[in-house]
C-alpha cells in the first residue's frame, strides 16, 4: 500500500514538473515543406549550376538564362553571413567567449567584473592543469614507461 502511494506520488510529481516546463517543444517544430516552397526557385538554380560545371552568375546573366527568371540573385556570397548570422542579433563578441583567453578578456571587458573574470580564469587554469596531468600520465608514465620500469628494478 505504501509502495503504491509512493509510486502515485512520484507519477503525479513528475507530471507536474513536466507540465511546468512544457511548451517549448512547439518552438522546435519545423515545416520542411514550407521551407522547400520558399527555396524552390533557388533550388532550381542550384540544380542547374550542379549540372553545368564551372558556370558563374555572370555567365548566366550574359546568356539571359531562363533559370534566373523570377529570381533576383545577388552577386554576394553567404559564407561570412553564415557565421555572423550565428550571432543573430547577439553581439559577436559574446560568441567569441567560447574558448580560452579570449573568453577571459571579453568577460572582463564586458562585465568589468573582477569576480566573473576570476571565475573564467580559474576555469581556464583547471582545464590546463587537467590536460597536463592526463598528458603526464599517458605520455610519461605509459608510453615513456620510466616510472614503472624504474621502480621494478
Amino acid at each position, binding site marked *: 500500500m505504501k509502495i503504491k502511494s509512493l509510486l502515485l506520488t512520484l507519477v503525479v510529481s513528475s507530471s507536474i514538473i513536466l507540465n511546468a516546463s512544457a511548451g517549448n517543444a512547439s518552438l522546435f517544430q519545423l515545416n520542411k515543406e514550407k521551407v522547400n516552397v520558399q527555396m524552390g526557385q*533557388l533550388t532550381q538554380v542550384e540544380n542547374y549550376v550542379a549540372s553545368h560545371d564551372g558556370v558563374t552568375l555572370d555567365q548566366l546573366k550574359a546568356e539571359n538564362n531562363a533559370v534566373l527568371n523570377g529570381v533576383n540573385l545577388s552577386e554576394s*556570397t553567404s559564407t561570412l553571413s553564415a*557565421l555572423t548570422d550565428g550571432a*543573430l542579433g547577439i553581439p559577436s563578441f*559574446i*560568441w567569441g567567449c567560447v*574558448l580560452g583567453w579570449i573568453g577571459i578578456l571579453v568577460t572582463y571587458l564586458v562585465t568589468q567584473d573582477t569576480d566573473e573574470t576570476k571565475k*573564467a580564469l580559474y576555469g581556464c587554469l583547471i582545464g590546463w592543469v587537467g590536460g597536463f596531468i592526463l598528458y603526464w600520465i599517458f605520455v610519461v608514465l605509459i608510453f615513456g614507461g620510466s616510472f614503472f620500469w624504474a621502480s621494478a628494478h
Partner: protein
Amino acid sequence: MYRTRLITILFILAVSNAFSQQHNRVKCDFSIKENLPDGTSNLTIGTVYFDKNHRKLVYNISFPKKTFQVLTDSFFYEVSNNKLSEKKQAANLLQFSIFNLALSSNLANYGLNTNGVFKLTDVSKEDSLVISTWEPSTAKLKELTGKVLISQKKRLLYGLVFFDNKDKILSKQFFTDYKNINGLNFPTQIIQINYINGKEYYKVTTYKDIVVNATNENEIYNYNITAY
C-alpha cells in the same frame, strides 16, 4: 598486487585513448540558399575546408563567382583572380563555426557549455527533445541579449532558438540529416529562419561529400593568405 592492477587500469585507459577518434580536419561540398529582406536572394556553392590546428576555414567558391574566402581567428580574407580583394576584421567568428564546434565536440550544446557567458538555467524533456535554456550570466549581458533554447534529439543538436532581451524570437536554426563519418556526427542540412519585422526569411545550408581527416590538399587546408 596493487601495482599490477594500476598498470592494468592505466594500460586499458591508454589503449582506449589511443583508439579514440581524433578529428582534426573536415572538408565538404556546400550550398547556401538564402532569401534576404531586400528582396534579393543568395546562392553560394563550393567546397569548404577546415583544419582545427591551422585555425583556418577556407571556402573554395565556384558560384556566384570563383573566389577563395579564408576566415582566421582574426580576419576574413577574399582572394579573387589571384589578388586579395577584401580583408576585414572577423574576430572570434571562427570559434563559433559549425566546423570548429563539431571537431571540438562542442556542437551538441553549441559551445555554450564551455564558457561562463551563458548559464544553464533549465532542462526539460518534451516528446523526443531534451530542451535546455541558457540565459546571459550577468545583468550587463541581459541588457544586450536574451536567452537561447537548445534542443537535442538523440543527444545531437537539433534546434536553436535565439531571443532578444525582450523575449522576442530573433531566429531559429535546425540541424538535421546527420551523417556519421569516421565517428564524427555532422548535420548535412541547417535550416535557419530569421524573423525580421514580422516576416520569416529562410536560409538553407546543405553539406555533402563530407571527408574527415583527409591527408591530402594540405595547401588548401593551410591556405597561405600572406602570399597575397
